């Protein structure tokens, strides 16, 4: 944790924004290690995929559109601001002193809902991974909200900076299979990427379906899936990549995931249960839960992947 303090201070002090982006990448990695030490594997998974990878890439995209040096402020020292921050920090720390120590078995959090989930989860849903069962079944409504948030974020990005660019084409349209000169020299990168991208996509599928039994699930799988396409777009021409995943496809994907989630909920309502009650979807409760969780995670994965891909392409296609 000392690392994080050092990195935090360095991030605040450095003026070169590019170095700051790099250091935030390292910060995310140390945060992920911290989560691993705290035994929260699913969270570490998502933090790794999103924080260390996609965030760095997107921030670079932003840097490409703005300057890369922070303007020096003409600020004198502000003792009042510092005092305020210190006082607030101390008040927060004082508040945490009242909390039970980490891992204390008599803490309140371990007594009401958590034991219920931990004990009953396997009986209700038949999944060994409690995180997935909580995320998709017990708190399925929250996850539906999260998926909507992702959808809205991607839609917002598309609306704000995803305008169609009209005008004369500045460079000739490429014939299929032809590469621009700058990329033609990158033989090593091209060959390695062609080997790796199928493996990456396969791994994304593995993480998606294996989320029932190990760490994984829809969010992480979506990010890894998007990472495969982002790699393709980086190594090869971005126009080629864009014809491979056309904007219509990602738009459909964005909506389809959310729609799938909601339809599962409506289907369970039609079959006699309440909204998002998967037990009524099949003959036995466990099978119904399995089916419901599977479909719901698939919806999440589709939306997350489409969102990441469309946001990246929107950023990368901007001109300065």
């Amino acid at each position: 944790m000392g690392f994080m303090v050092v990195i935090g201070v360095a991030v605040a002090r450095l003026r070169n924004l590019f170095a700051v982006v790099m250091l935030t990448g390292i910060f995310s990695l140390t945060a992920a290690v911290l989560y691993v030490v705290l035994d929260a594997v699913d969270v570490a998974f998502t933090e790794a995929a999103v924080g260390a990878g996609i965030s760095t890439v997107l921030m670079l995209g932003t840097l490409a559109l703005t300057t890369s040096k922070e303007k020096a402020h003409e600020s004198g020292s502000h003792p009042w601001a510092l005092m305020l921050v210190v006082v607030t920090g101390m008040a927060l720390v004082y508040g945490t002193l009242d909390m039970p120590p980490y891992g204390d078995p008599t803490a309140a959090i371990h007594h009401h809902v958590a034991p219920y989930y931990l004990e009953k989860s396997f009986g209700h849903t038949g999944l060994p991974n409690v995180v997935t069962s909580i995320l998709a079944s017990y708190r399925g409504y929250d996850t539906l909200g999260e998926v909507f948030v992702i959808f809205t974020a991607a839609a917002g990005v598309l609306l704000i900076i995803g305008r169609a660019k009209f005008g004369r084409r500045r460079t000739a349209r490429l014939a299929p299979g032809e590469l621009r000169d700058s990329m033609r020299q990158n033989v090593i990168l091209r060959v390695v990427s062609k080997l790796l991208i199928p493996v990456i996509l396969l791994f994304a599928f593995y993480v998606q379906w294996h989320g029932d039994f190990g760490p994984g699930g829809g969010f992480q799988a979506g990010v890894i899936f998007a990472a495969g396409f982002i790699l393709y777009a980086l190594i090869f021409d971005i126009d080629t990549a864009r014809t491979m995943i056309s904007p219509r496809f990602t738009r459909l994907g964005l909506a389809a995931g959310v729609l799938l989630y909601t339809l599962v909920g409506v289907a369970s309502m039609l079959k006699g249960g309440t909204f998002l009650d998967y037990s009524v979807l099949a003959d036995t409760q466990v099978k119904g839960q399995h089916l419901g969780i599977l479909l719901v995670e698939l919806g999440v994965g589709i939306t997350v992947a489409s969102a990441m891909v469309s946001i990246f392409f929107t950023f990368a296609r901007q001109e300065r």
Partner: protein
Amino acid sequence: MMGAVAAAVLVSMALAIFRSIKGPTVYDRILAVNAFGTLTVVLISVYGFLSGRPEFLDLALVYALINFIATIAVSKYVEFSHMGRPSGGDELGDI
């Protein structure tokens, strides 16, 4: 023994961070982040063994992957100062 390995990895991480803060050119920093990512992969695998939970290995694989993609993205950005220039006049747009 595993504890000693973990300690060695932590020491290496500290050295990599030092290079990332200090590195005079941009490429030093990119290199330091890449090395830090590989060290994280090792740390997670060793820690997974230490605590007897081999599910962490999926996590390590994802790190290795993301580390690679991020390094390539950053290198491309620094080399071309963009990440994919559009050629304009494309009625597709993104909407």
